[in-house]
């Protein structure tokens, strides 16, 4: 049978992949996809804890409602973030983070 550690390992590895996407890629859209992967890793560990922490024979549904809220906020975040990326592209004609060095000292 699956154990809690299995799910936490899968969730942690997904988070690591998302972190690698944010740290290694220089295209701002791929960095954004890495952020989404990390959010989903957090959701996976929340749902795993909900299933393994039973309350009178049922999963703990508070955690699943929290995941529902996270998905909603993530959808709003994607919409706003992509609008900012489009505005950035209109101003600078690039999505490459190394070309965006206006704030660099």
């Amino acid at each position, binding site marked *: *049978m*699956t*154990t*809690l550690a*299995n*799910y*936490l*390992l*899968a969730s*942690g*590895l*997904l*988070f*690591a*992949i*998302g*972190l*690698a*996407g944010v*740290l*290694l890629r*220089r*295209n701002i*859209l*791929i960095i954004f*996809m890495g952020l*989404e*992967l990390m959010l*989903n890793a957090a*959701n*996976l560990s929340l*749902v795993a804890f*909900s*299933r*393994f922490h*039973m309350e*009178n*024979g*049922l999963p703990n*549904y*508070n955690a*699943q*409602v929290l*995941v*529902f*809220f996270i*998905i*909603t906020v993530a*959808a*709003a975040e*994607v*919409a*706003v973030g*992509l*609008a900012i*990326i*489009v*505005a950035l592209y209109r101003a600078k004609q690039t*999505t*490459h983070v190394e070309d965006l060095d206006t704030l660099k000292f």
Partner: protein
Amino acid sequence: MQLALFWVFAALMLLFGLGVVFFRSPISSAMSLVMSFVALAAVFVTLDAFFIAVVQVMVYAGAVMVLFLFIIMLLDLRAEARRPVNLLAWAGGGLVVGGFVAVLVKALGSDPALHMVKPALANPQVNDVAAVGFTLFRSFNLPFQIIGVLLLVATVGVVVLSRKELK
């Protein structure tokens, strides 16, 4: 059976996640991300979280990824494909990620409480959607309404941001 399904879908999820990082073309990365989200929804099903799995497919694999693909299409990113790779940045990033994975494996191995086997549901026919709905509307009614306002504000913000001239 369930253990095998969990490993199959977790492996698919991680493989397509790696695809997001390592594909050169943004379209391939986005399609890989869709597959990763669908595999994650299947992992949610192995945790008996059917409602979350359906929401995951509809919101993430559907709405969010359509938005991503539209923006990639809009920006026309083909010119970006070839750039020299900064080896120092890759080494640093690899070090951080490797350190994180090492800490994760060590932490998961050290605590025996994490190796509990999945407890059985009292009633396997439980109505998952109804239970989540009751929790949402009884215990979390105010946050639910606030998040509706948040979505409205985000929509208005996106419309303002995407106008041609920003004042």
